[in-house]
């Protein structure tokens, strides 16, 4: 598990200059304790969106143009899950050697929507089932000489404690 305040995975002379940055701007908060996806809620009809709506609402019966920035639920239930046994093509930046990862689609109760994400590093399909409660964490997506690029991932609730 990495977060913004943690040491890089391999502390070395580079450590002083390596920084953690989001892999995409504005999609999630980088609060070390309680990271959250940043979505939107339509001020006219209440429809949520992720990524955040900018100028129009997905509801065909709504012409709203104002959107409140909201943090989405940090916990949800697995709607379905899979993994990536073969290296995805670019623009995915794969580690060398490649390490397979799990992907989950998570149902958020309040927002009544399903959001995808990788499962946290080390979580495999054997750790998952439909309905598993998961929590949002930040984790490294890829790294270069200067940066760890962070992305949101989902981790089974209590998994950290079990390890």
């Amino acid at each position, binding site marked *: 598990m990495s977060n913004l305040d943690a040491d890089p995975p391999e502390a070395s002379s580079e450590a002083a200059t390596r920084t953690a940055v989001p892999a995409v701007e504005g999609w999630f908060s980088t609060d070390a304790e309680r990271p959250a996806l940043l979505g939107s809620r339509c001020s006219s009809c209440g429809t949520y969106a992720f990524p955040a709506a900018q100028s129009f609402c997905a509801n065909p019966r709504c012409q709203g143009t104002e959107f409140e920035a909201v943090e989405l639920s940090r916990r949800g239930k697995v709607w379905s899950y*899979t993994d990536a046994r073969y290296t995805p093509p670019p*623009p995915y930046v794969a580690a060398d050697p490649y390490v397979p990862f799990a992907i989950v689609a998570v149902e958020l109760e309040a927002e009544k*929507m399903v959001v995808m994400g990788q499962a946290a590093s080390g979580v495999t399909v054997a750790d998952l089932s439909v309905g598993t409660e998961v929590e949002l964490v930040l984790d490294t997506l890829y790294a270069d000489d200067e940066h760890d690029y962070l992305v949101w991932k989902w981790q089974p609730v209590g998994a950290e404690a079990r390890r």
Partner: protein
Amino acid sequence: MSDDKRVAVLGAGMHPWGKWGRSFVEYGVHAAREALADADLSWPDVQFVSGADTIRNGYPGFIAGATFAQALGWTGAKVASSYAACASGASAIANARAQILAGLCDVALVVGADTTPKGFFAPVGGERRDDPDWLRFHLLGATNPTYFALYARRRMDRFGATDEDFAQVKVKNSRHGAANPNARYRDVVTAEQVLASPMVADPLRLLEICATSDGGAALVLSSMEFARRHAGAEPAVTIAAVSTVTPRFPNRVIEMPNFSTDSAAAVTGDIEGFRPSIVRAVYEEAGIGPDDVDLAEVYDLSAALELDWYEDIGLCGEGEAEKLLADGVTSLGGRVPVNPSGGLSSFGEAIPAQAIAQVCEAVWQLRGQAAGRQVEGARVAVTANQGLFGHGSSVLVTR
């Protein structure tokens, strides 16, 4: 305007699917010439050429209608090109049908062809941080099989589908495709072979995921009146309806290439799922129901997805597809053979050609020309297809 919304299918043609490594234009021209010969017409007879676009072959692919028209030789025909992801071929059919039904032309040629790279489909090049298709690869490593696998796992969880069920879909389609000269994969496989193939996206294995292929398909369509004049008889096969509807909000199923579904927070009530809505629209337009269907060509992007389609096209209720398969209902010789062509399982996907190829198979089946894979006495065929960005299609073919 006449109430008769049928158009005649005068000709069908294909370039065999494979990994030939040549220009998509070559496959398209080959398929077009086959379809024209089948229709007993020549290229200058065509008044409207409707191309289905490919996005991986540069500018000529974006204006496929003109590319094929130039390759066949400019004749002054009206031209249009359609892009609708996996439904591009059906979109091109829909455009040709509309021109014919509006009385703007009598004879139209529909062509789609593709040359594909090996391996996973990747987004088109360049760093495009505002394109969800680029972002899903970059931020999630989510390939197309990722989404197919999410649906497959859902099916296992909701209905108790098993690895063996999925493998048996592949086994069935390999038997069907073995006799099809246009199919790329013609070896019959066993469930053991399927289950021994490498896992790609749990629970889907390599032999359960559709490959990417080169291929081309074409149709010659005409007005009913032209068909009667041309052949001196009622046309043997007609397209009775075409559906190219969008999903309805809120779409609760995660679809390629999205990061999330719609939110249902602000609306109440059940909304019909996208896949069933595509096919319901074609049945309604044709005034024909699933009980009338003799065969179906459905988009088996994965073996598991074919089972979803059984329910979506109305062959059985939710959760009953595994039994339908096990009872042999969807195999050749069964009540409603599904993918008698062998499906994507035997073809691999040549995107803009694929929805056209589904209709070609329906035409050959209804004419009784599907040697080695014939559905005896077939009179009604339905096709179904879904791609990304909210595109899908269904075509109803009758004799």
